[in-house]
């Protein structure tokens, strides 16, 4: 392995979750019966004219702005010509030399906390192809393939990176955080499984210290980041072996088979690179109003990577807390709302831990539960000021989840307030010592190990309402007594 370094760039296709297709008013759908969302435009009937979906342009701009891309003052569409049954016009409308979003940069955070800076080459708008299913032997007598045009014409943004990545795990880190960023922007469902986010990797190797780029292969369309990482590692190993044994890497598209770990070249389509791009005469240029672009820039939500930094730097959370709490835009918004009204560290513990654990039992997510952020914050506040003990707080939480009451009212109604009144606690301890004379004797003799016994019993007696610190102190005070 040593002596060579991998050079990796990725291309990501993201289906925009607009209501309609890129160039016609057909509704987007997933899982509907085949060919129920088509029209003369997306079926490429003669004489039809495409019209650009304004929302797709807006989302492409949001993506470009989030990736720090230069926004083209004027961009145009091109036709990318090739023949395939999933492409009824025999060309895909895409962008070529003037994409809507140009050079940018994305910084991700590696697991060890260091920055992973990845250059963005471009992000452009295009349309998705239809869904081609290879019928094969599954159905008796089905000789051919079948096409469902529901997906044909779905708006896509293709994001292309510079060959800045140097390992499979960096590629995975980048892709996961890019995906999260797109989710926070609300532009796409980004489901790898359903194919609304697809990633290809360009992989080459070169001698360490060299700046030239080796011959690259393209690793196609993996449906999970984990498989993509494994595929990249397998491809690096394959290329290294070829070069180390004096061979040459061929430029080709390869497929990684997760089951076997094998890399196989895909049959190269003859002359497939002659796409004969030319400007799409049916679509006029997109010239976004600079004031609109500024509005979009200022209206960008806080994105997960900067949010993680702020959680650690300003709010004192652990890197792990920050990562978990930015797991989805909904969870991040929920947590930030709680942390706005309560101690962030305590809020993080409760939201990550008890809240999610209890909600998992009833199959709810925090943001759709009865535990509104202010209720969660109120409960964290009651704990912090010592009004409730931890076990009591868990009980209050369960009650709020079930009935949606205000935590303070639940504490009141159910008598769950923490007993920190020392006289009351002293009585409890005195009763316990009377009832357990052997242990009481040991305690007076200074046997530390029975302290836990009395604290536990006192908590039990009070239904978890006693302030454990006060109990601890009062039990300890009995040492040496008579």
């Amino acid at each position, binding site marked *: 392995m040593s002596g060579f370094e991998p050079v990796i760039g990725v291309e990501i296709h993201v289906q925009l979750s607009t209501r309609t297709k890129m160039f016609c008013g057909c509704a987007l759908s997933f899982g509907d019966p085949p*060919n129920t969302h088509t029209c003369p435009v997306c079926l490429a009937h003669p004489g039809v004219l495409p019209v650009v979906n304004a*929302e*797709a342009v807006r989302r492409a701009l949001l993506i470009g702005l989030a990736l720090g891309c230069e926004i083209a003052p004027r961009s145009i569409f091109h036709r990318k010509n090739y023949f395939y049954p999933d492409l009824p016009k025999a060309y895909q409308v895409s962008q070529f030399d003037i994409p809507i979003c140009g050079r940018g940069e994305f910084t991700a955070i590696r697991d060890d906390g260091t920055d992973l800076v990845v250059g963005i080459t471009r992000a452009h708008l295009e349309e998705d192809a239809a869904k*081609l299913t290879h019928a094969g032997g599954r159905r008796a007598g089905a000789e051919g*393939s*079948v*096409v469902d045009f529901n997906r044909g014409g779905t708006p896509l943004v293709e994001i292309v990176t510079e060959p800045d990545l140097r390992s499979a795990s960096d590629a995975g880190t980048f892709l996961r955080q890019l995906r999260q960023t797109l989710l926070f922007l609300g532009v796409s469902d980004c489901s790898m499984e359903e194919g609304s986010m697809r990633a290809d990797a360009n992989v080459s190797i070169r001698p360490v210290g060299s700046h030239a780029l080796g011959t690259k292969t393209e690793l196609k369309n993996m449906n999970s980041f984990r498989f993509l990482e494994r595929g990249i590692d397998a491809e690096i190993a394959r290329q290294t072996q070829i070069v180390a044994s004096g061979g040459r890497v061929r430029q080709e598209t390869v497929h990684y088979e997760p089951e076997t770990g094998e890399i196989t070249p895909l049959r190269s389509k003859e002359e497939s690179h002659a796409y004969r791009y030319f400007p799409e005469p049916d679509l006029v240029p*997109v*010239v976004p109003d600079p004031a609109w672009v500024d509005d979009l820039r200022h209206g960008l939500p806080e994105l997960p990577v900067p949010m993680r930094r702020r959680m650690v730097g300003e709010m004192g959370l652990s890197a792990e807390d920050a990562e978990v709490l930015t797991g989805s835009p909904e969870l991040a918004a929920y947590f930030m709302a709680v942390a706005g009204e309560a101690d962030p560290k305590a809020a993080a513990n409760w939201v990550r831990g008890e809240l999610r654990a209890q909600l998992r039992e009833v199959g709810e997510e925090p943001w759709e539960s009865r535990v509104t952020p202010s209720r969660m914050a109120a409960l964290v506040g009651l704990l912090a000021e010592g009004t409730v003990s931890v076990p009591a707080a868990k009980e209050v939480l369960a009650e709020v989840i079930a009935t949606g009451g205000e935590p303070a009212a639940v504490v009141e109604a159910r008598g769950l307030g923490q007993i920190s009144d020392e006289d009351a606690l002293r009585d409890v301890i005195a009763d316990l010592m009377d009832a357990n004379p052997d242990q009481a004797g040991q305690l007076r003799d200074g046997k530390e190990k029975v302290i836990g016994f009395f604290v536990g019993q006192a908590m039990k007696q009070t239904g978890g309402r006693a302030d454990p610190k006060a109990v601890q102190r009062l039990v300890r005070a009995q040492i040496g007594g008579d």
Partner: protein
Amino acid sequence: MIDAKTVLHVARLARLRLSPDEQQVMREELSGILEHIDVIRAIDLDGVPPTTHVLAVENVLRADEPRPGLPRDEALREAAHVVDDAFGVPRMD
């Protein structure tokens, strides 16, 4: 004049089958177009942006509002083959 090989290459990309006579006609016509481009190339066009559209129109956009499309029967009516409510095409795997 472009050579016959180039004509055949372009024809193949366009999925066209040309008879020898048609190949000759295409050689002449395509060469004529390329010669015209050579004329344009000879002009000093420094600083002149390429004309991609002849209309001075920009930003023809559509609101993201769904509109009814075609009923499936109608969508499939002109299909050469229909298999399971989908367009049947030659085997592609």
